[in-house]
Structures are given as C-alpha cells and as structure tokens.
C-alpha cells in the first residue's frame, strides 16, 4: 500500500469508526463507555490521514508533476469525506442503521467511480512509466517498531472489518450466542443480598434474579412479584428459557445467564423474541449441560413482547 492509498485506507477506517459511534450501532459491539474513545480515534486518524494527503499534494506540486496524482488523492479523499458526512447526516436524521449503512456504501460507491475514472485518467496521461511519477514513494521509510518490518500489504486487511461493519452490519449477539454457551452465573454472583426494593412487581435485572434465586435459595424473593426482561431461547425439553448476555470487555466475550420459565407461558414464542415477564420465585432448578451451572426458574403470571433494548447486554 503506497502512501496516498494508506492515507485513504485510514480515512475509510475513520469514517467507519465515526459512523458506528454516531449512529449508536457501536453499542452492539462494545460498551457505551468506549464510544467517546472511538470518536477520538476517528478524529486522530482523519487528522493524520488529512495531513499525509495534504503533504503529498504539496510534494507533487513541488516536483512539478501536473495534477494527475493530486486528482486521484483529492477525489479519493472526497469519497471518504462524503461517506463520513453522509454517516453523520444519517445519524442526525435517525435512519435505521441498516439503511444508513447502505446509503453510505452507495454514496461512497458513486464517488468511488469518480475516483476510479480520475485514477485511470492519471495513469493514461503518464504514459509509459507509471511508477516513476512520484519519486518520494520510493524513499525507504523506517518504522519505529522493528517487528513490523515487512511489506505493508497486510494493511489491506483493514478493509475486511470496515466492509463487515458497514455492509453486513451484524445485529447484536442474541439467542444463537446464548444457546452456544452454558449459563455463567458464578462469575456474576455478588456476595450477600439485602431486601428487595419497594414496589409490586419489583423490576430486577435477569442477572440479579438468577443470582438471588441460586445463591440465596430464593429467600430474598419469597412472596414477591418480580418483573424481568430478556430474550427467549430454546431450553431443555422444549420449554423456553429467558436469557440475557453479559459482557465484560466487548461483545466477543458475551456469555449468557439463563432463567427457566414455567406457569403462564403462551405457545408461539420463538428464539430471539424480547419479552418482559412477571412472576414469582419457584424452587425448581435445572443444571445447564454446557457449563454445569444451575438455571433457576420463574413462575410466570404475565408476559408481554417488548422491543429490543438500545443497550443489548448486561454488565458483569
């Protein structure tokens, strides 16, 4: 990857970071607390890439090379700028993430074609020796980090996550991840439990309910009605479980906490549906075959479907 191309690659990376953080899509993959850092990274990368492109324009002009390479760099830069502007605009108008992504991709696609034609013009006008037109490119550039010696071609791989994040826009992890791993209760169980808060029903996180039900044998839950939110997964012998994914670093380490549902559970729930359930403690326990940890139960008295929450994961 040559200098200008590297700068444009970095601009694309910055645009991707900015888009994910501004549209709120980033919380599907990382903690909300990381979003300011992602924005900071996007700003730093764009400033760096902008500086590199600007200098390369100056260099080209100083060499007396006509605007051929300038045009490529400038129009390609405008591609990425257009993409970031589009993403910022779509964030403001609260378009859904998927359609916003496609808009951005198409917008950049359109200007990419401009860049491509500019590029082919450039090489056509240069004639026989396309690699000699910017001698600066061949100056060896020492790296500060010895073990990074080797071709910078590996940098092309950066296009893969950018494409996956902006084109595929993977949904938050959910039922599939929860079915793949066993419930991990022990990791999240705090020490002692005080009495529940006032109110009937009491709103609890699924993680807290499970911890109280297992560690305390439900003592602090006795005689109370609780309300929990989570998504449905297929449990053992066809009965549904309610689950929530808990994240400690980023979505990559998401592990489920599961609660079994008995009582007034309607038929027709399918894995991945987000629901809010009300009910009371029951002393029934399953053991998750995947992790060996216990799965407590809730005796359901009321249930309604809800929209998936903005922050899909619980914190440990």
């Amino acid at each position: 990857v040559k200098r200008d191309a590297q700068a444009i690659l970095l601009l694309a990376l910055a645009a991707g970071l900015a888009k994910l953080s501004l549209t709120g899509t980033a919380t599907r993959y990382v903690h909300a607390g990381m979003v300011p850092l992602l924005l900071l990274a996007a700003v730093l990368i764009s400033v760096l890439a902008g500086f590199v492109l600007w200098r390369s324009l100056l260099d080209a002009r100083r060499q007396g090379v006509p605007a051929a390479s300038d045009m490529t760099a400038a129009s390609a830069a405008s591609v990425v700028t257009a993409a970031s502007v589009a993403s910022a605009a779509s964030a403001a108008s609260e378009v859904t993430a998927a359609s916003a992504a496609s808009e951005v991709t198409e917008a950049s696609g359109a200007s990419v074609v401009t860049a491509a034609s500019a590029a082919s013009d450039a090489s056509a006008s240069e004639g026989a020796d396309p690699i000699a037109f910017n001698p600066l490119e061949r100056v060896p550039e020492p790296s500060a980090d010895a073990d990074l010696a080797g071709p910078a071609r590996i940098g092309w791989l950066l296009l893969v996550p950018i494409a996956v994040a902006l084109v595929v826009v993977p949904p938050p992890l959910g039922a599939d991840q929860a079915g793949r791993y066993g419930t991990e209760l022990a990791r999240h169980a705090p020490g002692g439990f005080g009495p529940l808060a006032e109110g009937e029903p009491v709103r609890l996180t699924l993680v807290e309910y499970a911890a109280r039900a297992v560690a305390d044998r439900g003592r602090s839950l006795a005689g109370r009605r609780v309300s929990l939110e989570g998504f449905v997964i297929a449990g053992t012998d066809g009965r549904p479980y309610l689950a929530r994914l808990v994240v400690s670093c980023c979505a990559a380490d998401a592990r489920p906490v599961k609660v079994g549902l008995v009582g007034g559970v309607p038929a027709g729930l399918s894995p991945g549906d987000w629901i809010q359930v009300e009910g009371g403690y029951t002393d029934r326990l399953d053991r998750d075959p995947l992790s060996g940890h216990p799965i407590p139960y809730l005796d359901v008295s009321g249930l309604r479907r809800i929209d998936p929450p903005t922050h899909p994961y619980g914190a440990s």
Partner: protein
Amino acid sequence: MTVLEADEPPASATAGRVSRWWSRFASIEALVLALVLVVVARPWLVGLVASPRALAAAAVFVSLVLQATPFLVLGTLLTAGIAAFVPVPMLEGVLRRDSVGLVLTSPAISPVVLAATAVAFPGEPAFVLARVVAGLLAALAAGSLWRAAMRATGRPAVPPPVHARVLAGPRGWSGFADRSRRDLVRAGGVLVLGAGAVTTLAAVLPPRWLDTLAAFPAVAVVAAGLFAVLVSPRAETDAVLISALSQFSLTSRLVFLIVGPVVNLRRFAWQSTAIGPDFALRYAPVALVAAVVAGATMGGILL
C-alpha cells in the same frame, strides 16, 4: 540496516513485465477497485452471512476490532511521537544503555497498553499489576538470552538493531506523520488477522474444543503461549483479543500477554533474515520458555 529498512523494495528493480503490470494496481487503483467490489458484491456478502451463527461470528469479529482500535491508534501515535520529537541525544542515551531486554519488548508496558489491559479485564486490578511485573521479568530474561545467543552463535554481542530504526528517518511533524501512518496501517492489518483467529476459536469452532483444552491448567498455559507466537498481536491489542477466550484461566491469558511481545512469528522471521537462522533458532525457543515461566509464575502468585 539496509535489510531492516528497505521494507518495500521497488518492484520494478527485480522483475519484468508482470510485476510492472501489477505495480499499476498496487495502490490507489486497487483500493478503489476493492471498494467498488464491496459495493457491487453487497447482496452476495449479506447473503453469505445470513445464518445466525455467521452473523454472530461477524459481530464478534467487529467487536474485537472496534474495541482494540482506539488503543492501537493511541499506542501508535505515542511510539511515533517519541521517535519523532524526543531529542536524538536523549533517545540515543536511553537506547545505548544496557537495557537490551527493555528495548526488545519496548512497547509491552506503556500507559496505553496498561489502560487497554485494565479495560479488557474490568475488576481485575491484580491482572494489570501481574502484567507489569511479569512483563519486566520477561524483558530482563529476554535481554540476557539475547546476549547469550549472540555469543553462542559467534557474533559480537551487539544490541538489537532497533536503535537504527528508531533513530533513522525524518523527525518532526513529517516524520511523525510518516511513522504513525505506516505503523497504523500495518498494525491494523495484524490486528485484523488476530481478530480473525480469535473469532475462529471463539465463535466458529465448537466451544467444547476450547473447553477441553482450557480444562487442564498446564495445557492451557502452553496453548496460550503458542497461540501468542502464532497471532503475534501488538501489545496494545492483545488484551482485547485474549479477553474473548474467557474459558481460559487468568494465568494462561496472562501468559499470552507476556509471550506476545517477546517471541512471535513476525519477530522470528525478522531475526532469521536480519541476523541469521542459527541465531533465531537458538534465541526464540529459550525466550519462549522464559516468557511462559515468567507469566505462569506471576499468575500463580498474584491471580
């Protein structure tokens, strides 16, 4: 020094028509082509990952890259800033001192690395401390092993030629921009490779495989060390990558973080070409064992 610095030999110098043809497409044109392809192939790409498992793997992959990128950016800018703005005599003073080990593993313990580690392992301050102590121990060991391997292979005991790389090259803002741009692009590519490897282990292969491996503490430690050698992550990103493999004990994940900066495939390849295969073969295995022992010991004491 020439071996070290001519990372990108001009393609036209050695090859004929074929590489000339290729060189036309080796930069912006290829990048543009790739972007166009992504746009054109979008329906196909989306269809490819339509299954829930593939989408989950894609989310895991993106989350690893996203979580690691800010720290990678800050770390790269920090390193490039030191190389470009710290006065040369001061740099030279630090580098010429007998701190071979520290130079060998230099980016392993920086504020950015420690911040990334603390974020990747929330609620585990002892883990960050263990990384500092074991990292220093491994650096000291690597330094003396380096000198021993130099002597054993009949070379004058010179420090690693990192010096030349840090001290050479333009300084000031242009030097800073060049270094950080180049390091960021490369380290980004390496991060993508590492994230791909971890995604494969965590979200593609059956979880039972890793569970089985992680169930035996000694096996987990050795496996984590070898995985670090293969993946060769940057110190700013390794904590994020290994945090996803939560089946592994904290100690084995610490070993991964300690081994990575000391011994890895990229370093091994570089040592083989720049110094000699005999040296690399003598140094790397012993340094690997030393780093594994340092990590496992500190893990045993502190975690």
